[in-house]
């Protein structure tokens, strides 16, 4: 049975979903608010839809992985997020896992092609 093959963008989106949390944690070693975080990720060619990113920050905070506080730095009040202690530990673990996974994937991709 042959079904319609989804467009490349769908596969890319699924691929990005898997590393979304790691990408966000990596940028929150220094405090960021939602918009600045999205801009920082986009500048490093990791665009994340706003409708996905902002709720994700709240969920990570609810899980105790992020700390947050309201700040007023001359502009409108903004909620800044930064890694909590468990968040920093998770980030280290995920960072290691990513290194191992990337190495395995590189070997797979560089191996003999069918």
């Amino acid at each position, binding site marked *: 049975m042959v079904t319609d093959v989804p467009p490349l963008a769908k596969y890319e989106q699924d691929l990005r979903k898997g590393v979304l949390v790691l990408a966000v944690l990596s940028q929150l070693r220094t405090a960021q608010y*939602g918009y600045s975080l999205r801009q920082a990720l986009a500048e490093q060619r990791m665009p994340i839809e*706003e*409708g996905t990113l902002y709720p994700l920050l*709240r969920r990570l905070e609810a899980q105790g992985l992020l700390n947050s506080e309201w700040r007023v730095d001359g502009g409108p009040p903004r*909620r800044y997020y930064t890694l909590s202690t468990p968040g920093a530990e998770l980030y280290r673990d995920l960072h290691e896992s990513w290194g191992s996974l990337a190495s395995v994937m590189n070997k797979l991709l560089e191996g003999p092609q069918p």
Partner: protein
Amino acid sequence: MNPEAIIDTYVTDVVRRLPRKQRADVAFELRSLLAEELQGRADDTGRPADAAMTMDLLAAFGRPMDVADRYRPAGFTIIRPADAPGFARVALIGVALQWLISLVAVYTAPMDATAPGGDWLSRLGTWWLTWGLGSFWWPGFLVSASIIAALVSARRAPKEPAPFAVLDRDRVNRALIVLYLALAAVGSVPIVAIPSIATWGSALPQPVVQAFTLDGEFLTYRAPWVLLLWAAALGLAVALLVAGRWTRVIRIASAVGDVVWIALLAWWVAGPIFVSPLADETTRGILALLAVGIVVDLVFTVRRIARPIAAPVS
């Protein structure tokens, strides 16, 4: 239209779906972020933000209910995707069966068609307001039972390994079969003793003896067949005990046994069993219920008769 007003409406629509204690904080942050996103778009395009640009932003952000879902942690599943088609089938068939049976009962009940409410349309209206709508208790019951099952399942430790019965549904518990055989042996004694109650039950009160006096025709022609079926059930239980699991042959034998049991019970219920009308009516009611139970078992047994796994046809 003022972009701020559009954003405020959107944010309100999102947060009203969130827990009350979270709403104010999320609303304030989300409105601020959307305003910055909008300003970013305005800066990129070199023109001031307007209603169309705001709507584009909100369309990209997502429907309020989808956004609210993203703010919530993952919930628990009430009906698993694999169970959904079966659930829908059981729910719809249950309603359809109730409708069929009640419609037949309504239109075959003797009633004067010229009397008020006796014409077919009035009967239909009455049926709809009673059995027609009432039959929807069944899907509601199924959903309620699914919610309870999901809650119980969610409370279990997630790493708990699946029990053998889940991984190998054909495996049987030999100890339970031995218990079943023992209980069947004990339970059959009073049943077998009923025909001779007049002989051994002389010490019992006379009304009790009369209540358990079997119909002569039943005892002579219809009752003896049960001995044959008991023997077959015993053989099936022993076969299960030896095999330690349900095999295709044992399931087929069990299904055939169910059919014969249903036929025998239908034959029994069709005529008198006890001489006493009260005992007779009660017993036949119980046996009819038993037959319904066997029909259910038959359906499950037939569904579980595994077809041999065939090689794919190229």
